[in-house]
Every structure is written in structure tokens, then in C-alpha cells.
């Protein structure tokens, strides 16, 4: 299950921070759909874990989290989700110093269908 995977990864990350090789330098967002429905987990390179409704890593978080606070609602459809993501990316395109609005969307549905496509997040103006 997603919950189990998230905790497994968390334990591996937490083990690594005090190991000889040091922390695994990777922050992650884990998303999955299982019997309990969809869930998303925010993982830190130190091994912090938090179940979230939406998340962002890296500089994107400074621009996206507040947008998602405002627009996310429970049981959004795939289309609504994509629109929200496009909105976040367009904000990055507008306000973020690194000009790269080319994002790849990877999604998984309850039926087990896996999406892997390019998301057009260019700002409208």
C-alpha cells in the first residue's frame, strides 16, 4: 500500500542520515491509489514524512503551495487536477527566475491506469 511504501522509504532515509555514506540527497513526493483511496506523502532527505493533500518540492513550493491551499478541494477530477497543476506551473513561468515551464505529468488512477505526458504550463501572457 502507499502508506507502507512511504514508511518503508522513510525508514531507509532515516537510516541513511547517520550512516557512513550520509543522507540520500533526495526529497520526494510519493503518490498512490490503493484500497483506502488516493494518498500523497511528502518525504524529506532527512526522513521526515507527512501525509498531505498536495505537495511541492524545491523552489516550486514557494510559489505553488499557497495556490494549492486556495484551489485544491477534495475529490477533484483528473481534469481539475491538471488545471490546478497548469496554474501552478504558469505561476512559476511568470515569477520564477529559472525559465523552464516544461513539465512532465505522471499520474496513476484507481483503475491502475498510468499517465505519462507533457503538461503545458506556459503562462498565458
Amino acid at each position, binding site marked *: 500500500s502507499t502508506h507502507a511504501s512511504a514508511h518503508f522509504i522513510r525508514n531507509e532515509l532515516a537510516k541513511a*542520515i547517520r550512516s557512513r555514506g550520509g543522507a540520500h540527497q533526495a526529497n520526494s513526493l510519493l503518490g498512490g491509489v490503493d484500497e483506502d483511496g488516493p494518498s500523497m506523502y*511528502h518525504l524529506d*532527505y*532527512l526522513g*521526515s514524512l*507527512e501525509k498531505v493533500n498536495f*505537495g511541492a518540492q524545491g*523552489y516550486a513550493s514557494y510559489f505553488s503551495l499557497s495556490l494549492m491551499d486556495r484551489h485544491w478541494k477534495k475529490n477533484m477530477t483528473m481534469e481539475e487536477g491538471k488545471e490546478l497543476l497548469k496554474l501552478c506551473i504558469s505561476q512559476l513561468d511568470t515569477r520564477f527566475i529559472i525559465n523552464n515551464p516544461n513539465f512532465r505529468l505522471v499520474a496513476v488512477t484507481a483503475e491502475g491506469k498510468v499517465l505519462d505526458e507533457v503538461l503545458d504550463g506556459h503562462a498565458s501572457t
Partner: protein
Amino acid sequence: SGPSDSSSGEGSRARRAVERPGRHKQQGGRRRGAMSILEYNGSALVAMTGKNCVAIASDTRFGAQQLTIGTNMKRVFKMNDKTLLGLSGLASDVMTVSQKLRLQTDMYKLQEEREMKPSVFNNMLSSFLYARRFGPYFVEPLVAGLEGPENKPFIAGQDLLGASVFTDDFVVCGTSEQELFGTCESFYKPNLGPDELFETIAQCMLAAVDRDCLAGWGGVVHILTPTKYIVKELKGRHD
């Protein structure tokens, strides 16, 4: 509880021995300067005694320095029917320590066929933390429980190396430690019933975290009486 001077003392050499956030210029890029690793995620906890009851309150913010990532972080854990554990400090270690202590408590229950008393749990936690003297877990725990057949309220606080402090009124820890000392010292009264204790501890928590940017974003209070275990969420400022 906990050393108030974060830049020197027995913990500082230990803190340098472990991977520190910011060493590889992780997110935010800001130089961490004198900010202690115990303040990286932000937290606030307080434990209080009442008449035949104890309560632990915590905030629920999960942040990475100035950025708030989550607002529903669990910091208070029920170890057994008579013991509550609250952990402040680095979020990763809060989870790791609570998991390892749960193992210890459950193994004790299986082997001894009795529940671990809060004072025994506190000692065990102290040894557990000191075992990592030169590479410690960056947590500052609070233990609250009901001791023995008379259910005498028991609270204790420790620093990251396992030095315990025992009081009969309240213990505090976290980034809002100093604010919490102020509010608790003013509002605390001995021998409060569970409802009054809840009201008191909640007000102490909410007032204190409103003056701390790293803690807050919601709160939770766990109350333990001989017959009941109640968890209540607090409505506070989300900023």
C-alpha cells in the same frame, strides 16, 4: 527543559558529528547560521498535571525553516494505557524515536506481561538517548502519565542527551519553550480536573505559539485520566 544555549555545551560537539541540513545547500539556500538543528522543523509541546489526570498539548506545524509544509504533524504518542510521550525537535528523529520506543514498550509488555510505568518509561527513554551520546537523536521529549495503582500524575522532561527534570506542575519544550514557560507559569493552578486542565493547557499553548513563527498552525491536546483517553484538536491562528 533542554539546554537554552544552543551554540555551546555538551550537545554542540555531538550536533556537529551528524549530517546537518544545509551542508549540501538543500532547499531554501539560506545559510543556517546559528539556528540549531532542534529548530529546523519547529515545534511546541507542554505537559501538565491535574487532579488524577495529565495532559500533553502540542502544535501540529511541520515546516522546513521558514516554509510550512504540513499542518497535521503528530508529535504526541500514546505508549500504553498509562503513558503519553511528546517529542519536539527534528521531525525525522521524532518519528524514528517514537517508533523505536514503541518497540521497547511493546517488547516489555510481551516479556514482563505488565505495562511499563511512566517513571520506568522515562528512565528507559533517558538511557536510550544517552546511548547516542556522541551522535544523538535531535529530540527533546516530554513524558506524562499516571503512576501506580493510585494513578498519581507523573510528568518529566528531558534534553536530547537524556537528562531528566521532574516537576509536579508542568514541563515545556520546543521552539516556543520560553513563551510556554511564561504562559504556563501564569495560568497554571494545581489540582485541576480534566476539563479545566484542558482549558488551561490549551490557552497556554495557543498564546505561546502565536509569538513563535516556527510553531503553531493548529494544535492538539491529549488528556489521560484513569478511565479515559481524550484527544481534542485546537483551533488557532494559521499563520
